[in-house]
């Protein structure tokens, strides 16, 4: 226990830097909307900025970067199952959409 406690002491400066970075990334993602970017550029920017912010929060603020590998794997691998759900539901949604176009218009 003392070992893990010792691991989690980081300089305040690190948190301030990440904090500033999160502010910059949030401003950038707001500007994506403000300047009305459209199409692939918009989706790409939104996803990249979102993943960067999420990664910073999990790795630094939640100390995942310094956690033991067993915990990292137990927490970060299961959410991948959500991607399967997203894949299934998007094909289902396409099917519903086409059916509605055929019968409810």
């Amino acid at each position, binding site marked *: 226990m003392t070992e893990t406690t010792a691991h989690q002491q980081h300089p305040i400066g690190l948190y301030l830097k990440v904090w500033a970075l999160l502010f910059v990334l949030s401003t950038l993602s707001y500007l994506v909307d403000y300047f009305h970017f459209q199409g692939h550029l918009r989706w790409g920017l*939104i996803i990249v900025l979102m993943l960067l912010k999420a990664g910073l929060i999990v790795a630094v603020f*939640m100390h995942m970067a310094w956690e033991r590998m*067993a915990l990292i794997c137990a927490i970060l691998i299961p959410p991948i199952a959500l991607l399967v759900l997203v894949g299934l539901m998007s094909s289902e949604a396409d099917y519903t959409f086409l059916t509605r176009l055929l019968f409810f218009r």
Partner: protein
Amino acid sequence: MRQLIADWSSDQQAFHVAWGKAMMWIFLLSDTFIFGCFLTSYMTVRSSTTVPWPNPSHVFALNIGGSEVPLILIAIMTFVLITSSGTMAMAVNFAYRRDRVNAAALMFVTAGFGEMFVCMQAFEWSKLILEGVRPWGNPMGAAQFGSSFFMITGFHGLHVTAGVIYLVVIAIRLLRGHYERSGNYQIVEIVGLYWHFVDLVWVFIFAFFYLW
């Protein structure tokens, strides 16, 4: 049977961290699936509707000085939540240095920002309800907009409210010296995990619901 009990009950430990921290992580993992299901169902109803989806950029615009600024309230809410995450990270840092007064003070600041976020969300909800947005329909477009909006932001707001209460309770106990006997301030890091998770979920909601 006896063998199975022996295998599962012996002194085995998979996660060599404090049990409270491991449990909070597992709770957060289950919460990830809850929000994952909400966002996935939102994706499903949005991509299967034949009625155009209301443009969030216009729906959440505010009139400031006569001109319409798109999504400004949501941007401010995002900054407030990130700021609260920053103060929480500092509180955890102070707790590790066993500086309980500063840690508790920063936790109160965090709770204050959290409360501010909830108030802005209440304002946003009232504004949308006045404009006629209901879970079963709205004047701007697809009826599913209302149900997705109230469900996702409502559940997130509930998490923020619970987090504010949790923060205040732990900060008061910390100030009163409740954790002096065990000499262990681990609880501050556990509250911190929960709070950062609330911020993390907002990152995804902001990207998928408001910007998409």
